[in-house]
């Protein structure tokens, strides 16, 4: 199939590993999936310390279950990515360890205090879920199938995050102030979750034309603001004056792009942002520490395969 034929056939769940797809499609799908998979992994590492830091047994168990889910989502997405034949799972994981793999802007920032957790667990996960629900209609069938399972689990994450936010915003004055401070800090980053506006987005056109994604950055940002802005207000959070957000008559929003720090965003996109580098290295360290487990599994796989050269272990 050439690119034009692929565009003509593009529709939800249309293409599977059986299809002969042009390299452009396979590369674009790999880029999306690898980014998504890496983000699941890096997000899990960011939240992992809160299994220990959470203030109650219930919250600890929920964070433990959530981190486990996110790592599982990463695994599902690497599977959907490697079946495109562009990069192997090992190559993607190695690239992530070596700082070459890209992932979501929000996961480059440190998450230090409990009051910050709903910024990820409610707002970022809520934003991610808005996007992920649309990807159930992706033309790459393994991606859409991964989204079925991910969205199934993700409802627990978002509601858990909202429950923490509700608890904090109904807590002491001090808790409310600290949560507001965390919100002020995270809000611009969350707005940047959906990337630059459509006219500045470099990858959208092709990915949309071949049905890999079905909504633009702007549409998703609107969909997010439509539901999560009222939620933030409902819990008594004040929306910072900047970045300025204009509500249009048709229910859409315009975020004043110049009020957002795009230098920082693109530094992050290059994996050059200092705290993000620390998180990449932190994960690499954890990965290295359990290398012996992977090696043992690889050896086992060689034996099970009758000594023939095996695929790398998952």
């Amino acid at each position, binding site marked *: 199939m050439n690119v034009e034929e692929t565009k003509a056939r593009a529709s939800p769940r249309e293409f599977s590993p059986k299809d002969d797809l042009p390299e452009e499609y396979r590369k674009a799908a790999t880029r999306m999936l690898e980014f998504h998979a890496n983000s699941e992994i890096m997000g899990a590492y960011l939240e992992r310390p809160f299994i220990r830091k959470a203030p109650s047994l219930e919250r600890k168990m929920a964070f433990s279950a959530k981190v486990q889910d996110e790592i599982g989502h990463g695994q599902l997405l690497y599977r959907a990515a490697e079946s495109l034949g562009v990069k192997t799972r090992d190559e993607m994981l190695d690239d992530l360890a070596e700082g070459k793999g890209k992932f979501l802007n929000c996961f480059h920032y440190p998450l230090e205090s409990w009051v910050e957790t709903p910024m990820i667990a409610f707002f970022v996960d*809520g934003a991610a879920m808005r996007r992920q629900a649309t990807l159930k209609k992706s033309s790459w069938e393994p991606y859409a199938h991964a989204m079925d399972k991910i969205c199934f689990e993700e409802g*627990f994450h978002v509601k858990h995050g909202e429950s923490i936010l509700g608890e904090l915003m109904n807590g002491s004055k001090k808790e409310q102030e600290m949560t507001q401070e965390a919100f002020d800090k995270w809000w611009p980053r969350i707005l940047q979750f959906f990337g630059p506006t459509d006219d500045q987005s470099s990858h959208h056109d092709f990915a949309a034309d071949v049905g890999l994604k079905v909504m633009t950055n702007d549409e998703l940002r609107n969909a997010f603001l439509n539901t999560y802005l009222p939620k933030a207000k409902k819990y008594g959070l004040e929306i910072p004056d900047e970045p300025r957000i204009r509500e249009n008559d048709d229910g859409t929003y315009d975020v004043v792009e110049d009020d957002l720090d795009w230098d920082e965003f693109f530094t992050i996109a290059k994996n050059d942002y200092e705290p993000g580098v620390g998180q990449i290295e932190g994960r690499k360290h954890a990965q290295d520490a359990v290398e012996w487990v992977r090696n043992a599994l690889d050896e086992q796989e060689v034996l099970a395969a009758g000594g023939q050269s095996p695929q790398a272990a998952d």
Partner: protein
Amino acid sequence: MIWEVFRQNQAGDYHTHCGNVHAPDREMALLFAEVQHGRRKPTNSLWVVPQEEIGEVDTEDAKFGGTTNKSYRFARTYNVEPAAEEVEASEKELTEAERKRGEA
């Protein structure tokens, strides 16, 4: 040789198990699967898998989902209005899964 058969209704759907056939090789297994399972029900694709290649773990060997109360894994536990339609959809699916687990 026994081959387990998985049928997909239409493109993009999941292949789900629908039975098995007795056949000497893969080619015959596919043919038998086609006539046994693909003639009436809507079928876009069939898979056949040698039965001996399938691994199984069941409730004799495993406690799926554990034995303690793990309600914290389910969206319904958190007493907030779902923020968006996809959160609500997820909660419905999770609640349905929780209910069926309770019945089992």
